[in-house]
């Protein structure tokens, strides 16, 4: 059972840097309905906001969701509460990388074939999103 939690450093960092306030969310789920990768998320976007509202830092840090989000901005475009979820996800990624350390992805993980064929754009953006 979860009881009240104190202020979470990770969540406060996320709020400050993304400029987004999770409390604006009323859990309509439109983000999750619109998200093209919703099916692959262990926490749907609206759940991420709910977990942020409840201060469930550990669950968020362990979730796959921020790493599966591709920053396509569909959620932000359709949110009736004007919350930029793409920024929330980015904020979470960076807060997790900064507060908990570790890079999520590096060149070593790529096959020579991928290195050959992938557009430069994909490599640079992948490294940017997953490393700090």
């Amino acid at each position, binding site marked *: 059972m979860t009881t009240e939690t104190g202020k979470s450093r990770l969540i406060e960092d996320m709020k400050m840097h993304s400029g987004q306030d999770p409390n604006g969310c009323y859990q309509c789920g439109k983000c999750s309905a619109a998200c093209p990768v919703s099916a692959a998320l262990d926490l749907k976007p609206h759940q991420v906001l709910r977990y942020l509202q409840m201060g469930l830092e550990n669950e968020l840090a362990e979730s796959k969701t921020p790493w599966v989000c591709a920053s396509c901005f569909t959620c932000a475009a359709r949110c009736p509460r004007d919350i930029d979820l793409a920024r929330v996800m980015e904020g979470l990624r960076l807060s997790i990388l900064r507060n908990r350390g570790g890079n999520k992805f590096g060149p070593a993980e790529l096959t020579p074939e991928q290195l050959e064929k992938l557009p430069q754009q994909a490599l640079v*953006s992948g490294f940017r999103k997953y490393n700090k």
Partner: protein
Amino acid sequence: MRYRYFPGCTLKGQAKSMEDTTLAAAKAMGIELEELSEWQCCGAVYPLYEDELISLLSPVRTLAAAEGEPLVSLCAACHHVLKRAQELMQRNEDARKKVTDHLEVEYAGEGRVLHFLEVLRDDLGFDKLKEMVKKPLEGKKVAAYYGCLLLRPSKVMQFDDPENPTIMEDMIRALGAEVVKSPYRTECCGAYLSVTEEGVAADTVQRILDSARRAGAEILVTACPLCRYNLENCADNEGKTPIKVYYFSEILAEAMGLPSESAQDRGTKEEVPQG
């Protein structure tokens, strides 16, 4: 019509044909694209984290290098980053000061930042384009695939209606082809997930391709090298009607009667500039 032109890394590598065909078509249309000298990477992704100013150095340097002249790019990702960096420079004085002080440049968000499609629509006009077509793409069923980066966030990109865009369809129509619309034309292809979460990207791409097929498309056009990579490499198309993926500029060049071989056909042997 004269523009400063920012190619970006990918256009000198895997997406060389997008640059070649655009430059050829532009020349034929009397549009002059003057490549910025000593340009560097656009930054690839726009930093959504407000204190990530370091990621803005590169796009702002590019914006400042345009010296207030209209700046055109072709790659959807480059255009996205440049346009959003420009908007931040206009909106956030603090960020502007930090970035420009560091770069030792003067830049306050001036100048038009355009995607080449916008040049065709707003400056040349699709009616004019239609007149310039030498080999109309008659009988070809072409679907546009917009993806994310050109459309969203619409308040900043101001590219087209983010849910019902028409710019690519209008171009396709001007080139004489038959427009086919698929409901997934504005959905994400999975972007760099093809690197980290292949399964997820496979799903998103499959949906996009299947929906285009269902709509009867033979050709899918895009303005993004990464979209094209994903559309061509991530889905399982065994036993299904083939769909060719082209850059918008390739069908443009073809309709203009210019050589338009795709990067895929000629390999990727070009030198990649460091950036």
